[in-house]
């Protein structure tokens, strides 16, 4: 590998990794609080991209297709899809909270399929263009071209994640979230409104995913109903690698997975057609040898 290639793949890994990290964060937060694998999370990301596209095409009439339009789309989509997450939790997951684990998992799967199916039915499976005026302008570091969009993208996702980390570690609600994740029953006894904390967690996790969806839509320039499936899987892998339930772990896992993919597919003898095997292989190896991930803490299950 030449140095250019190393730098280029580093950039690639950072960009795709920051998407993974944003989505993984939501997975991790929800898992931390109600110990549920929210299968619908990838589809929330997809919904976010669509809401963002709709908002973008409306506000574009007034503010144009530049940064302002993207930021508007981002904020509105985060709010709207955050609420969608709350609605899903309220109507699909809350009634199941005391049900057997298998039923909850299948319900989550059903929620994911409903979002995905609804998007297919509404769009007819078409791919929609998300055309911005952001352009390809940027700086060149030897042979590597880095666009301004790419820089803003990485900075924005780091900002969002840092904000989230500050929220969880500093605010009252963040503390309540951590309390609920450690012991839901005790938290309730201590006067924490557990339902509200869970709803808030879904709101924030979904909003982050939606933010990721809008950014991905605007960056790649296309939105379609199936975009959440692979993203959901990869983000879950990232969450496991970093340590599920841990906020910094999700960030670290996302970036590591992005880099793993980028460098993995430039290895000799490992063609790009094997890349996904590589990713899932990493997932399985982590689950077998270090199920708590890099930054996760081990939980002793009480009998």
């Amino acid at each position, binding site marked *: 590998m030449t140095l250019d290639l190393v730098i*280029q*793949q580093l950039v*690639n890994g950072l960009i795709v990794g920051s998407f993974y990290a944003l989505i993984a964060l939501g997975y991790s937060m929800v898992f931390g609080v109600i110990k549920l694998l929210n299968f619908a999370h990838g589809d929330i990301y997809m919904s976010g991209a669509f809401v963002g596209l709709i908002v973008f095409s409306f506000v574009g009439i007034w503010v144009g297709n530049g940064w302002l339009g993207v930021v508007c789309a981002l904020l509105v989509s985060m709010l709207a899809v955050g609420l969608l997450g709350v609605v899903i939790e309220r109507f699909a997951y809350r009634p199941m909270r005391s049900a057997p684990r298998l039923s909850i998992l299948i319900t989550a799967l059903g929620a994911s399929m409903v979002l995905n199916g609804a998007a297919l039915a509404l769009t007819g*499976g078409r791919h929609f*263009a998300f055309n911005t005026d952001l352009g390809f302008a940027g700086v060149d570091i030897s042979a590597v071209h880095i666009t301004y969009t790419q820089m803003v993208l990485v900075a924005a996702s780091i900002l969002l994640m840092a904000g989230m980390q500050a929220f969880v570690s500093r605010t009252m609600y963040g503390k309540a979230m951590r309390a609920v994740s450690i012991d839901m029953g005790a938290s309730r006894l201590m006067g924490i409104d557990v339902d509200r904390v869970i709803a808030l967690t879904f709101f924030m996790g979904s909003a982050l995913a939606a933010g990721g969806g809008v950014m991905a839509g605007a960056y*790649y320039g296309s939105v379609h109903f199936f975009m959440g499936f692979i993203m959901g899987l990869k983000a879950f892998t990232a969450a496991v690698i970093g340590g599920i339930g841990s906020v910094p772990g999700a960030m670290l896992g996302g970036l590591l997975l992005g880099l793993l993919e980028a460098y993995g597919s430039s290895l000799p003898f490992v063609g790009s057609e094997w890349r996904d095997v590589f990713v899932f292989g990493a997932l399985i190896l982590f689950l077998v040898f270090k199920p708590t991930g890099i930054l996760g803490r081990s939980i002793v299950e009480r009998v």
Partner: protein
Amino acid sequence: MVASFKRLACATALAGLVMTTMANAADIKIGIVAPMTGQLASEGQDMENAVKMAIDAANAKGGVNGDKIATITADDACDPQQAVTAGSKLVSEGVTAIVGGYCSGAVLPTLKIYGDAGVPFVIIGANSTKLVAANQGNAFLANSTGDMQATTAVELFKKNGYKKIAVIDEGDAYSSDLAKLTAEAFKNAGGEIAARETTTAGEQDYSAVVTKVKSSGADAVFWTAYHAGGALLTKQLRQAGFQGGIVLGDGNNSPEYLEIAGSAGEGVYLLSPPTVDLLSGAADFKAKYKAAYGRDAGAYAALSHDVGDLIVDAMARAKSADQKAIVAALKASDFKGLAGEIKFTDKNTLQTSNFHPVVAKGGKWVAAE
């Protein structure tokens, strides 16, 4: 549980009723098999419409050999399992011949059914070379096969002076077949394959592949899969500063490609199937189609219409509805349609390729000179 088993029996009986739909009474029945549901439903709709147009026209002229022709459509949803069900539905309803088929994967397992039943089958869209091997002699490929597209592609590469090509597919039957054939053909023609990559359908980030292509020193990229991935790849190649040529396989012939790729799509080459916009004699057909169905004729409309005409022509030449005679007549076809000439080789594939290279200029596809 007694009641429950009764319920089960009722469900089964009901299903039987639903399934035994009666065909319209007519003298000769032609089956159309196409994806009417699923992601490729729009293409399937086009195929059905265009074939029906041809059959209606033949009926208006008094039918064939004095008999009127009716059509029965069966949905294969581009899924192998459903294709088998659809195929046996057509066979059990006693169709004289079958036309259609868009996805090679869905057509493959049906060849045995049609072969065993001896039904003449003209394949409109599907063009994997595996179809040729599995053919029992009764099937005909009206679309150019992958190796023909590969030949057309290599001619284009040479004309444009490309020496090192990166070939990228999406891992499905169609695109990996075309990629393999093109890579071989280009190597045989003295070219060099700089990179051979596969992406995952539905993925958005192609940066790792783009980086590999760039560092491989390829002076052109050949994308063999579909328009959604093609548009993303084009955009990301240009974003990373790739200056070389971009050539797309026939699966990219969609207005969505140009919409999504935007300005990055300018100057990109496409190997197009014979669409109505490219065919000089098809203006009349295009207008009629729009009038009849209220939509623009899609990529395979012209060829589907030709196949509808071809089967009528073959039955007329066979002078009977005897399936063996129709197969023999199809073999001897010398037919000139909207999309070009249809003459079959001894393997029942087209003698001449019908692919046309086009180039994107000003947000539209125009013929490449």
